[in-house]
């Protein structure tokens, strides 16, 4: 083989939760190119504009390459010893004065399973608090909660391969061709080859053009829509009677509840034409094999967790779970949303969602770590910010998360960060949150570390370092174990592989997971001690008492915000193809050329009523705050609604989002915000002229 590269490392993509396997090619000490691994189970030789191209951020000039400590209003460079010494002193003092629960930590769904496990161990064992959470709180915590209640385990019931095996796929509140491009491409290709799609979203997403029926419901009315689908399935005799009788519980209560959700009643609430709802229900329930995929359009609502249970109802009614081609596939936003929560970076659970009050579990961890722990759960992210403002939380350790940019109710978050006595940020760049730090530790990107990510199919895949961290930056594993040591708790690991060995030892469902067993294709948990994994969950029974799936009779309730005279439009926020969340990585790559600024999508009718023109800059105002951005007029959004993303600190969309959150999991209601548009009086500049087309 004639190679241009010095080395090629097979690793797992650090952007979204699809989990593409990548070949990272290195030349002259930097990543020269990335190509897809032909044998990647999720990506099968394909990847997207982020995974393939957006890697220059890792060698960006403004990477953090040395620790920074606060001094007289600014930051100065410091040695690792000084920076970690400051952390140990401050945490020691605060713990002595206010107790361990005055300290809280955030792990990151961008980090590896091993990093997240080490982080929660540091908080629990070195500091002595269950105040540990991670950013899945603000995206798929409702999914996790609901899947555990309905089926027993917190993860997709099948694999992406079930998409091609299905006859029908129902997509709710998810836009895969933008947010999860490789799965989006797989769905589109399957649709071209005959997979029938039903799409449900306030926006007419691209895949709607390849589908049979599109349901454009009003934001915040998912529950009415889902109960309406269940109504039609029952009314028209499409229930899998045998499955319901043998494998479920609670059917009668559900049937009684959804009796009122006639297509006509649902049309009143959702604006979805009754005939479309009936057609969608028939498509889904008549198929022998049907999948449901959903995203944050389901979860980031006041009743998001309940809506995930209503999704599970549909699968239970029709027996579309636990078989090839019949999977429930929540599309996870970040590369390791699944794994960070699986591995105990949550205030109420150890690994595999086992509660901190579970005596046998807690004592096993206590014995292993040589500490004693409380049996009461710690604080969730929003509670941490409230406690900081209230004065009972004194210090935070935030690892790989820019809460001041991405969390809702931004003003409150900033107030919380300002109220802390001591803040540690561990990240690869300075960001909105590090502005409030006392110590900033320079960490490593996914291209510079070793460990595992767990993708949206529960697939634990290897991450291998393709390059070294820049300057004196260190891997997160090294930083966290060193800080823990300085806090007086020696973890005793030499490598991330040792961490996984401990996880497997203490977690029956992960018992067979070993780095050396993961190979090129990874393993889908549960993994038996002999290494046998589980592509399909619940083939014979659900992981609940009696082995039965649980129907949830939950009614529609209005969202936390509603349009009124002052704020007549509903804002929905989401992701765009070229960028990724806070944009920390993608805004430092050529993706910025592909999309250099955000815009507000407005329906032509609303634009006409407000007298808006394409490209005009407007002020978007909510009950919480206001931002400025240019308008794009598009028929892809329903009248009465507007849409924008949250990738640009210049816009800071999350200033608009209030404190409304999911009733069970505190996941913020990013998807329903009443807003008003006012002309800002200035026009966006003309796009730059393209370079000459062809040079010879």
């Amino acid at each position: 083989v004639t190679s241009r590269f010095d080395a090629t490392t097979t690793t797992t993509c650090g952007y979204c939760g699809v989990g593409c396997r990548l070949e990272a090619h290195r030349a002259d000490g930097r990543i020269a190119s990335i190509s897809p691994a032909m044998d990647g189970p999720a990506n099968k030789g394909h990847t997207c504009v982020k995974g393939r191209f957006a890697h220059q951020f890792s060698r960006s000039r403004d990477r953090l390459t040395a620790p920074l400590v606060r001094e007289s209003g600014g930051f100065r460079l410091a040695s690792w010893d000084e920076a970690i010494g400051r952390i140990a002193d401050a945490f020691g003092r605060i713990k002595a004065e206010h107790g361990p629960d005055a300290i809280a930590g955030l792990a990151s769904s961008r980090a590896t399973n091993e990093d997240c496990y080490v982080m929660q161990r540091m908080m629990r064992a070195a500091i002595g608090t269950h105040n540990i959470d991670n950013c899945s709180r603000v995206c798929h915590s409702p999914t996790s909660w609901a899947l555990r209640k309905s089926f027993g385990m917190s993860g997709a019931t099948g694999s992406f391969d079930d998409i091609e095996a299905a006859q029908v796929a129902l997509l709710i509140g998810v836009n895969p061709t933008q947010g999860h491009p490789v799965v989006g491409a797989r769905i589109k290709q399957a649709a071209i080859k005959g997979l029938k799609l039903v799409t449900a979203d306030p926006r007419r997403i691209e895949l709607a053009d390849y589908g049979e029926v599109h349901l454009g419901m009003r934001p915040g009315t998912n529950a009415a829509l889902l109960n309406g689908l269940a109504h039609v399935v029952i009314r028209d005799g499409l229930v899998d009677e045998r499955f319901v009788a043998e494998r479920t519980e609670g059917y009668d209560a559900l049937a009684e509840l959804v009796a009122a959700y006639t297509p006509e009643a649902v049309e009143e609430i959702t604006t979805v034409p009754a005939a479309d709802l009936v057609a969608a229900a028939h498509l889904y329930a008549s198929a022998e094999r049907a999948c449901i995929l959903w995203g944050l359009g389901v979860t980031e609502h006041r009743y998001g967790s309940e809506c995930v249970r209503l999704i599970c109802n549909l699968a239970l009614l029709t027996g579309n779970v636990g078989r090839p081609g019949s999977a429930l596939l929540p599309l996870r936003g970040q590369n390791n949303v699944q794994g960070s929560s699986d591995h105990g970076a949550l205030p109420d659970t150890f690994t595999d969602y086992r509660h901190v009050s579970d005596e046998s579990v807690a004592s096993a961890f206590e014995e292993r770590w040589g500490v004693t722990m409380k049996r009461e759960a710690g604080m969730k992210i929003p509670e941490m910010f409230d406690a900081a403002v209230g004065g009972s939380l004194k210090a935070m350790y935030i690892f790989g998360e820019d809460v001041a940019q991405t969390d809702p109710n931004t003003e409150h978050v900033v107030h919380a960060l300002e109220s802390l006595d001591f803040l540690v940020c561990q990240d690869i760049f300075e960001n909105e949150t590090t502005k409030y730090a006392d110590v900033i530790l320079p960490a490593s990107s996914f291209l510079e570390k070793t460990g595992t990510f767990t993708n949206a199919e529960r697939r634990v895949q290897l991450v291998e370092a393709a390059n070294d961290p820049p300057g004196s930056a260190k891997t997160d594993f090294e930083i966290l174990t060193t800080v823990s040591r300085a806090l007086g708790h020696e973890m005793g690991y030499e490598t991330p592989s040792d961490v996984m060995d401990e996880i497997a030892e203490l977690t029956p469902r992960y018992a067979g997971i070993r780095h050396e067993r993961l190979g090129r294709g990874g393993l889908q948990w549960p993994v038996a001690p002999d290494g046998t994994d589980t592509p399909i969950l619940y083939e014979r029974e659900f992981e609940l008492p009696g082995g039965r799936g649980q129907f949830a009779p939950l009614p529609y309730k209005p969202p936390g915000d509603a349009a009124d005279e002052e704020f007549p439009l509903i804002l929905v926020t989401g992701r765009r193809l070229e960028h990724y969340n806070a944009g920390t990585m993608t805004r430092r790559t050529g993706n910025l050329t592909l999309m250099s600024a955000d815009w507000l999508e407005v329906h032509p009718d609303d634009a006409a009523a407000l007298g808006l023109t394409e490209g005009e800059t407007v002020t978007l105002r909510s009950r919480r705050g206001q931002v400025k951005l240019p308008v794009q007029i598009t028929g892809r959004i329903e009248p009465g609604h507007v849409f924008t993303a949250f990738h640009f600190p210049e816009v800071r969309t999350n200033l608009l989002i209030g404190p409304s959150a999911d009733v069970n999991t505190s996941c913020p209601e990013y998807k329903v915000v009443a807003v008003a548009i006012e002309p800002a009086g200035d026009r966006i500049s003309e796009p730059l002229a393209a370079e000459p087309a062809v040079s010879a």
Partner: protein
Amino acid sequence: VRVEIDGQPVDVEPGTTILEAAQSAGRYVPTLCFDERMAPFGACRVCMVGAEGAAAPLAACTTPCREDMRVDTTDETSRRIAAATVELVLSELPEPPGEHTELAAVARHFGIDEPRWQGERRRPAHDRRHPYLALQHELCISCGRCVRACDEVQGAFALTATGRGFHSGITAGLDSGFVDSTCVSCGACADTCPTDAITEHTLLDMASAYTGNGGTT
């Protein structure tokens, strides 16, 4: 279905192509327009093999195996035809393909160095408008892989084959370049291209840093 590849018996599913059977038997058959991610295309005529009783060499990538078929991947006639095809392809290029490319590997397989034909060569025509993707039209051999990757792997339908004969090539959008087309910048075209007619700027820059002339723009 049982077939024999170079004397070695192989059992394959009905519908398996000769190319797939040969690969499962561990035999190398050179290809240019083939990519396992896409449906077989049969355009390049480089995967030609001999089969007992067949009147002429067969394209291995598109010919399904038949019961008791005896395939010779080293058949001299097939090799001659395929080698001539590759030599003709090379004769149109302004310079030899990069050593790392599939085209260069196939040329090495056939032992082709400098093509015997010294006719008209394509003139360099580069498009570097996209932040990542670089088009070098003169290196396009019309294998159709990029167009099919765009359609069959991604589904963006941004690339089209254009022109005829010596002037054939590909274009993004209606000649508007990648950025103004329906391109989603997934890079599947660059990934599959066997000649670097579509590649990445960073890789071209890397090549020019070594040789001092990779950037012919």
